[in-house]
């Protein structure tokens, strides 16, 4: 184990216990809280999925009424996208990116905490709608005019509007932080073309969020004006256009898909080289293909709208862009396989999940081509085929990637190994369950089952496929319970990991597990893409930047939490009236004033 030099004597108060978490500005604690919150919301979204799958197990079942079913599928999508997958990525990025680039923290530690608290509070805010007049029930992309006051007169849509606005602020602050941190706080010698791919994908994702989020944020605000102030942005009767909503939403919504998948691709690109003991095959191609996906991702949004009646030439243009974006994706898959080829493969759980990611993402990519082919899309859009496709990408892709990342970095975060046997059991059940749950959806969609129906008739031939899907969903649920059990038991009793249990390539394995508050005693100097490999297997010596022996950490602060509470209470006020609005405003102002007047270091 590495022994640490003492940090400089703190010039500020330190808190203990719960307060140390509430006031923390340490990227590692913030990262862990992101991960814990995402796991919690993943479980809520998972419970919602179980209700959906139970209701659809057979025709004409009535576990929940249609009003509640529609709320549940809307919240399942909203929760999984905004409260589970995105913050999981933000959490892993938060914990790992500064370590990967040899930094002491994120560039803006308090802004980092603000993003976390906004995520947690908006998650509570959104889910509170179930108990305060009904959750939103218009689907996760909330098409106008179903979301108008005329057709959705409960506060559910308002909770959805303001919850997503809060989440937008949260992810924009996090993205600014990633961009600045990655561009300005790299260790000496860590040139852009030496960056680990996980850092590349986090950087690309951060830019995607910065350019995509404003579109949906504006659309949500216009929707609020339509609902409460009598404007007609999305109301055809007043000269507006429901399609405006779809364009504004999907201009965000499609890049959002890459926001959820690119960091997972980054994780896979870190795991494969370590577990195959080979450098990533075609590093430049993998890095630049991520950036290419980021750019082209902004030109494909209307492929969600092929059936809205656009002229064939417009549909064809968006089809072409959607097919173009398949090329960098294919490049990545072949480079990953080539990385494994001829390697010395250590078949441990992180690798199993990374390989599972590739195997499932291939299916999601291929079904995506069906959806990009406009005439075929006319048949399969808005059916269970799409539901199957998106779950191969977001469950087979994003979730498998996240789980690979957790098995891979758990030893770094806790100092303990996760249990391998439970890990393998988890993998097998999750992989089998996933295919049972989501593959038959393609078939049942092609044979006529639309998405978002709370029930179906017995005479339509959809019962068998749906029953298999439900069995698959319960298998996934069991695998997730095993995962949680494994996390808990390993955290308590796992084998001691040491600094570098996987024979890693990158800088996070050059410090202790878990790392000290200041990450590195001395900032290392980077001379290649695999600095640790070059030292362990290439005969290089570890060099450090001499001036960096002094670790200087920012003071803890409650201001981000107070500011976040203030913003959230303001949103409550926008739904329920002046009193919470004023209280929120006061807290918000106090948070800002305190923030400004507090020394940053």
């Amino acid at each position, binding site marked *: 184990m590495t022994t640490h030099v003492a940090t400089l004597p703190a010039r500020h108060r330190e808190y203990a216990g719960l307060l140390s978490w509430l006031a923390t500005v340490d990227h590692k604690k913030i990262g862990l809280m992101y991960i814990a919150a995402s796991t919690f919301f993943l479980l809520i979204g998972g419970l919602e999925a179980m209700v959906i799958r139970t209701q659809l197990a057979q025709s004409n079942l009535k576990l929940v009424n249609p009003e509640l079913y529609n709320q549940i599928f809307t919240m399942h999508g909203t929760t999984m996208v905004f409260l589970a997958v995105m913050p999981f990525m933000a959490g892993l990025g938060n914990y790992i990116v500064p370590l990967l680039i040899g930094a002491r923290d994120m560039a803006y530690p308090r802004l980092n905490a603000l993003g976390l608290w906004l995520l947690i509070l908006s998650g509570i805010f959104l889910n509170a709608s179930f108990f305060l007049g009904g959750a939103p029930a*218009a689907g996760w992309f909330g*098409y106008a*005019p*179903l979301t108008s006051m005329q*057709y959705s007169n409960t506060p559910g849509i308002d909770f959805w509007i303001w919850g997503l606005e809060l989440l937008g602020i949260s992810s924009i602050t996090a993205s600014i932080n990633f961009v600045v941190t990655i561009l300005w706080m790299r260790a000496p010698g860590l040139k852009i073309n030496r960056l680990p791919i996980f850092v590349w994908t986090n950087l690309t994702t951060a830019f995607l969020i910065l350019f995509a989020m404003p579109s949906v944020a504006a659309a949500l605000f216009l929707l609020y004006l339509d609902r409460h102030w009598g404007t007609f942005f999305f109301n055809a*009767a007043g000269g507006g256009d*429901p*399609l405006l909503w779809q364009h504004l939403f999907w201009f965000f919504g499609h890049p959002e898909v890459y926001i959820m998948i690119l960091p997972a691709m980054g994780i896979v690109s870190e795991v494969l080289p370590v577990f195959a*003991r*080979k*450098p990533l*095959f*075609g590093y*430049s*191609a993998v890095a630049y293909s991520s950036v290419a996906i980021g750019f082209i991702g902004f030109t494909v949004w209307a492929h969600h709208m092929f*059936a*809205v*009646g656009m002229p*064939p030439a417009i549909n*064809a243009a968006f*089809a072409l862009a959607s*097919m*173009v974006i*398949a090329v960098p994706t*294919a*490049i990545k898959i072949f480079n990953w*396989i080539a990385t*494994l*080829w*001829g*390697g*010395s*493969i250590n*078949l441990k759980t992180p690798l199993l999940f990374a390989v599972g990611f*590739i195997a499932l993402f*291939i299916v999601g990519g*291929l*079904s995506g*081509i069906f959806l990009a*082919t406009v*005439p*075929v899309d*006319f*048949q399969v*859009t*808005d059916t269970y085929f799409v539901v199957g496709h998106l779950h191969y990408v977001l469950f087979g892709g994003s979730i498998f990637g996240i789980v690979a990342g957790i098995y891979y970095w758990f030893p770094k975060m806790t100092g303990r190994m996760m249990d391998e046997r439970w890990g393998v059991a988890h993998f097998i059940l999750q992989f089998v369950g996933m295919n049972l749950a989501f593959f*038959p959806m393609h*078939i*049942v969609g*092609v*044979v*006529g089952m*639309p998405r*978002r*129906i709370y029930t*179906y008739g017995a005479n339509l*031939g*959809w019962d*068998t*496929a749906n029953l298999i899907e439900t069995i698959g969903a319960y298998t996934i649920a069991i695998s997730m319970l095993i995962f949680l059990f494994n996390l808990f038991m390993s955290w308590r009793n796992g084998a001691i990991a040491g600094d570098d249990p996987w024979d890693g390539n990158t800088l996070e394995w050059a410090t202790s597990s878990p790392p000290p508050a200041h990450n590195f005693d001395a900032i290392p100097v980077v001379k290649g893409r695999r600095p640790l490999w070059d030292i362990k297997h290439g005969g290089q010596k570890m060099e450090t930047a001499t001036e960096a022996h002094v670790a200087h950490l920012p003071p803890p602060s409650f201001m981000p939490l107070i500011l976040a509470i203030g913003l959230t209470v303001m949103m409550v006020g926008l739904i329920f009236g002046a009193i919470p609005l004023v209280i929120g405003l006061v807290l918000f102002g106090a948070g800002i004033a305190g923030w400004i007047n507090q020394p940053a270091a």
Partner: protein
Amino acid sequence: MLSSHANLITKFWLGLAGLGIMALAGCAPAPSALAPASDHAALIANLFFILFAIAVVVFVVVEALLFYAVMRFRRKKADEIPEQVHGNPKFEIAWTAVPAIVLAIIFVLTWQTLNALAAVPADAVKIQVTGHQWWWQVEYPDLGVVTANEIHLPLNQAAAFTLQAADVIHSFWVPELGGKMDLIPGHSNRMWIRPTQIGAYHGQCAEFCGTSHANMRLAVVVETTEQFNAWVAQQKSPAAAPTTDLAKRGAEEITKAGCQACHTINGTTAQGKVGPNLTHVASRKQIAAGLLDFDADNVRLWISDPPAIKPGATMPKLPLTPDQLDALAAYLTTLK
């Protein structure tokens, strides 16, 4: 148009996929997009099978490479260091070019099919469909027919649809006859199909449209030109006069109970425009947008409490006595 060898591929995969689907669907007759009953659906199914063939080949090759790599190159000794290969431009160019070429071919096929689907024939039967929460209003403007939830089409003649929405967005979808087209407030969308097989086809709203989205179903009946003409003639005739005493009382109840405020029955005083036209409701095979088969018991069941059958339905539960319900059901079942 697609070449003949594409049709060969089609037949091969049709058989294979058909088997798989039958096995999964438990042999029930699912409304499959791959069992086309129109030119429109056949064009799409052809393209689907070409993609399916490509996808199966890519899937098998790439998954096999992945699986082989993981199995073949397992670590044998703890300290073994494999050859450090960083890349290979030849391979990388190859696996960039091959997907690009395959996708270019798919794009050309997409473009051709898209244009074939877009050209509406001039001699088409014109049909205007308006989506409501949660039923379909169907009009044949040139033929003077207004009906709901059941569309009749003559065999082998093109039908051109104009699609509109009265409230929120809906999507028109009859899988065996063609792809979807959305019905959007403020927009007027067009699509056409030419049915090539006689039969009754299941359709359903495909865009989430609120509480009873799942209950917005639709039937399309494809019949010979003679049958279709007879159907049109019958639909244009005024409502049948009630003959039995019970049915006569039912006709009076239409006014007393308030049905006429929302429904039209041609040739009577009922001229409401909010709900479906009931002039020939008994000629339809189903009621409540495909939720119940049409018979006197189901009609009675439906009007006794519509929101219980179709949650959220605009049609209210009226305070009707059993006697009134009997009379209304008797009258409505005479409206052939």
